[in-house]
């Protein structure tokens, strides 16, 4: 059993390492990543990558030029946000302003578990109408359930 787990771990690692990527990425690759994160302002439902609009082409040229000048992704994004606002970013910034957006999903799940927990606490259950138990039987049932659910 242990052997199988260790063996699969090694197989997993070898698959991973067989595909070790070059840590250096060409400007073109970084540019493409950036294009995917920037919204086309003309065809507003496309990213710069997908859009052929003239402004999109201009912005793409700008990005490449800046990358060649050595600017980082963040610097380029900042440049564009200063001129066009955060709207140009397809990925909303991770700031206090957007805290509801980024933590929302987690809050929903937590809330879901919370409600379920409260709902299914033993005390809140009402027996279905069709069962008519005497007080004595009810106490007996409670005891049994107590034991079961512990």
């Amino acid at each position: 059993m242990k052997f199988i787990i260790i063996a699969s771990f090694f197989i997993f690692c070898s698959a991973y390492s067989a595909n070790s990527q070059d840590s250096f990425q060409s400007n073109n690759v970084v540019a493409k990543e950036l294009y995917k994160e920037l919204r086309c302002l003309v065809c507003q439902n496309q990213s710069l990558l997908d859009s052929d609009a003239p402004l999109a082409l201009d912005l793409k040229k700008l990005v490449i030029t800046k990358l060649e000048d050595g600017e980082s992704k963040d610097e380029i994004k900042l440049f564009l946000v200063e001129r066009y606002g955060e709207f140009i970013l397809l990925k909303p910034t991770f700031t206090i302003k957007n805290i509801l957006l980024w933590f929302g999903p987690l809050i929903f799940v937590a809330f879901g578990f919370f409600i379920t927990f409260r709902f299914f606490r033993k005390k809140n259950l009402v027996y279905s109408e069709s069962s008519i138990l005497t007080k004595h039987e009810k106490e007996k049932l409670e005891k049994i359930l107590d034991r079961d659910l512990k």
Partner: protein
Amino acid sequence: MIIELGHYCLALVLAISLFQFFVPALGVRYKSSSLMRSSFITAYISFLLVSLSFLSLTYAYVTSDFSVSLVAQNSHSLKPLIYKISGVWGNHEGSLMLWILILTFYSATVALVGRKLPLKLISLVLSCQGLIASAFISFILFTSNPFIRLFFPNIEGEGFNPILQDFGLAIHPPFLYLGYVGLSITFSFSIAALLIGKVDTIWVKWVRPWTLIAWVFLTIGIALGSWWAYRELGWGGWWFWDPVENASFMPWLATTALLHSSIVAEKRDTLKAWTILLAIVAFSFSLLGTFIVRSGVLISVHAFATDPSRGLYILLLLVLFTGGALVLFAKKASHLKSGSLFQPLSREGALVINNIIFASAAATVLLGTLYPIFIDAVNNSKVSVGPPYFEAVFIPLMVPAILLCAFSPMLSWKRANIENIMERIIAVFICSILLTSILVFIYNGSASAFLGVFLGFWLILGTTYEFIIKVGIKLSFKTFIKRSLKLPRSAYGMSLAHIGVAIFVIGVTVSSAWREEIEQPILIGEKVIINNMELSFLSINNVKGPNWIADRGEFEVVRKGKNKEFMYPERRFYPASQVNTSEPAIMSNILFDLYIVLGESLNNDKSYSLRVYYSPFINWIWLGILLMALGGILSLTDRKHRLGYAIKINNENISK
């Protein structure tokens, strides 16, 4: 004349729908069964009249009657017949006509098949449907009338966008609407249940087929839209988390949660309030989708001609139906008494977790879609929420769901013993890791695909394993086959649908992680190499089509061990509408798609801008979705889902 008849029929149906709303409700209140029974007749007549109305509009399109304003704006005499017909619903007013056609169709079908249901229940359901119909018909008649005539008829129509003349696009709305409107049935049943004050097994058994029908149609409709976008729009993408795409995805997520929740409600008589709430929410998402697409509140490339005043009207509809339903829910939900207990680690527990995840997923998509409105109101700033956000939050939500999905069917009801299945879990885990590693190795693909592929294999192996165990282990082959044929179809449906999910996940993961693309100018005679395939740009020719002229490129594709193949991407020009489009050439098979897009000719020398995409396993995306839908259809054909079966069984039990 025909148009005027259609118009008149519609106005008549408004009156009948109002009757259908009031009278059966009064019948329930005053316990008059004849008043209640009137709902059947009104449902049948409504459908008949709406069909006539819809047919009259279709007739106008087919005969290119440009004296009708809508036809003049949206159609053209040169359009092929099939697109004239699909043009009926390719606009705001016409699509609403399709909506109520489907609504009255569903109402009539429910009336027909539900004749033997408790009269109180069915009358309330039909009454609710009547109200929905009245609301939408009044919306059509007062703000979006398709029957308006032009004082001076046009000689020719203006509607000739070639992008919209596509078969996939033509049938995508009907499927979606069959889904959206199908949810009105579960909604009406929920309202009826809340008013009556109880949700019993009959109710759940009766409602489940309708939920499945709506779910199947939604699934297919969404898949069609996505597949069409991929093949036609030219950049190899298939989902952009656009507000209108999300508007169809949210009801789908809610309906999936509803399907699973209703299983618990049926088997264990619990989670009833939750099931009712989901049914209300699912239909509300349908209405919300209608609102988003037509109000102009959010930018979307799909949006119909938007109009804030129409938006206000739809908002009122939302307030009436969702608001009203939620008020009813708030008051009456606590009266729905729950039947049984269960341990957290049990089939019920797993389904509850599934519910939480899918409901949270729907809420998350809603949050991301509407967030720009929220932040604009609160902060007066413009923020955009695009695919990077949705992908970042959606995937972590779905991973636990998929992990759970493989093994939940193995958990027993009420209280499950983890030790029994631990061995199976480990076995599946190891095999999945192995298979994934092998695949990654063969394709020499990046390891970023590892998690997605692993989840896919995990789900396939787990589902298959569970199926085998259900039939029986340690059996001879013949006995195994015999026994497996005896399994109820809903068991097959579930397994097939879950496998569909797995295939979908693998398709999504691999097609994006291991995708290769080339974007460069190319001269005639030049070659490019992508994924060990050699593409040669042979020539450019002028071609003519029925309503277009094009530059067609000829590419020769050479793959190892295969004969030469040819692909022909085009750049088309439609004279009637002065529009240029790019038709990609796509080579599709189960293992990959090769996608060539020919751009404009550059700088007047013989070079053209070229984009080539190699997307491995991309067709697994749509294959997976198709399997999900097939699973749903299989389940529907199960005896126990036969509409009316629940009543029959109940009657038999009573007479015993």
